[in-house]
């Protein structure tokens, strides 16, 4: 009698169940941010077509994008960019510069840099409200 091997569980389930270390998180996030950014680039290109319809149309649209909610969203978007960019650099180091030998170290350095830049950008973007906030405290 021949045995009937049981087919394995699907890839999604395996992915969810399997132990995750820093490297596999990095990959999952890289994928998500990559897709997110690609979607965003489409939206972005579309949104900017309003430039061709004259100042009225564009500034009207920008009213929406300069509300505080959108500003925060914009800042958060930057975290996606930073994450994907720096992790991308890490991948390039792994692929091209034997970074695989030190991938955990590179991970720490690159993510550290990313966080610094992210906060830095936050400070830049929100310097006015921040300044106001500090002023009121004082």
């Amino acid at each position, binding site marked *: 009698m021949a*045995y*009937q*091997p*049981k*087919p*394995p*569980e699907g*890839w999604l389930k*395996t*992915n969810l*169940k*399997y*132990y995750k*270390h820093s*490297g*596999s998180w990095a*990959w999952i996030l890289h994928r998500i941010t990559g897709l997110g950014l690609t979607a965003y680039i489409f939206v972005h290109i579309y949104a900017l077509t309003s430039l061709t319809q004259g100042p009225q149309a564009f500034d009207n649209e920008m009213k929406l994008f300069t509300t505080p909610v959108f500003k925060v969203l914009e800042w958060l978007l930057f975290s996606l960019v930073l994450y994907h960019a720096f992790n991308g650099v890490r*991948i390039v180091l*792994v*692929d*091209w510069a*034997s*970074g*695989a*030998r030190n*991938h955990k170290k590179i991970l720490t350095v690159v993510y550290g840099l990313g966080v610094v830049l992210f906060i830095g950008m936050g400070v830049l973007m929100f310097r006015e409200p921040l300044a106001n906030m500090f002023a009121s405290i004082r």
Partner: protein
Amino acid sequence: MKVTLRIQKYNPEKDSEPYYQEFVLEAGDEKERILDLLHQAKWKHDGTLTFRRSCAHGVCGSDGIRINGRNRLACSTLLRDVNYKKPIVIEPLPSLPIVKDLIVDMSDFYKKYEAVKPYLVNNSPPPEHERLQSNEDAEKLFESAKCILCGCCTTSCPSSWSDENYIGPAALLKAYRFVFDTRDDAADERLDVIDTPDGAWRCHTIFNCVEACPKEINITWHISQLKKQLAQREM
């Protein structure tokens, strides 16, 4: 000291689905191997519990299994390497067909291994003495030659979960073993095999393989060398 193993069981003659069974076992100390506990479960509690093993010290590659969600060798994982205060979950290697309990069908894995022509090809007639090779060149192969074909890496790779035809880290590592052997003449043929949509390009440097490899082989590094070689060849 009591520890609990929560073992996935599946007997195709009886069960339609895998299920879990808990075994409460007596462990001497935290240096006990998981393999010893599996033996205890089989020999003292349930003789139907089925798993592969042979050498019991991490050199034959028989007993790759998933322990607490992670691929490892039962014989090289000690209690102290896992959280034994909670039940330790033991499952077969993911993504391969389950034959019974912890035994998976490895034929696909071996086929991928054979696909990269895992043998030295040297077209010049053999000299009377050994072919000379510097120790540096020899040592470049040693890490990859450590592989025991346990399958922990390939079955831990998300790319191999979604694309079962992905040739996988173990086969790529084997390709490295010969592509970079100074005595070998068939590098090009091997590179052809891995330069396919199901070849090296499915590796996204996820490092699950490296985390899983019981022989501590940095497989991703070896794959990166191969990819560079492939890219250079195309340029």
